[in-house]
């Protein structure tokens, strides 16, 4: 299956892309998507604990099951205001 990954702020800079397409095995979870991204970009790994993930606009846990066409957003600690 294919999903879309959005990355913001420092994670966008680390991945060097605001948006990435990711090909995953059927049955993959958010944690698998993270692992696939970190494999291609090891600098991502140290941000795992501080990153929250939204799937299709809703915050989810790493064990959230993904489906073809899903959009996940990688959200680092916020700094609005």
């Amino acid at each position, binding site marked *: 299956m294919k999903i879309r990954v959005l990355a913001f*702020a420092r994670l966008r800079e680390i991945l060097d892309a605001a948006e990435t397409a990711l090909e995953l095995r059927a049955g993959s979870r958010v944690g698998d998507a993270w692992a696939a991204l970190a494999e291609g970009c090891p600098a991502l790994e140290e941000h795992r604990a501080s990153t929250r993930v939204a799937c299709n606009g809703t915050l989810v846990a790493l064990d959230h099951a993904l489906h073809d066409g899903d959009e996940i*957003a990688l959200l680092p600690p916020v*700094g*609005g205001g």
Partner: protein
Amino acid sequence: MFAVVREPIDPRTFEDAIRPGDGGAVKFFGVVRDRADDGRTVRGLSYEAFEPLATVEFERIAREARERFGDVALAIVHRIGEVCVGEISVAVVASAAHRAAAFDACRYAIDQLKHRAPIWKKERYADGSARWRENEPIS
């Protein structure tokens, strides 16, 4: 009104946020400060947001404010992109029958926004360097 905008925020444009019949309205404007917490001279801030989730979060914060403080009307607008020193980055307006609820709701909304809304800022310094700044958790 709950919005993420790219254009400058004009402090005079929030008259609509004062609800007819209410007895008190509190406006808060977050402004880009000329100095970082470590004393470095700031030239400006670059903001970005995950816009669909940011406006949903603004609405959720407003709903919580009503649960806590009663019938309060809130407007929350955050600017993204390059914001210079002295310019407004965020506006929160709370309107209620009495001033206490308006003050409380306004304070609650800006505190929660800084803690929860998917918005990020990079501080740009006079010496040309820059870094991402995270908000402290609410104490």
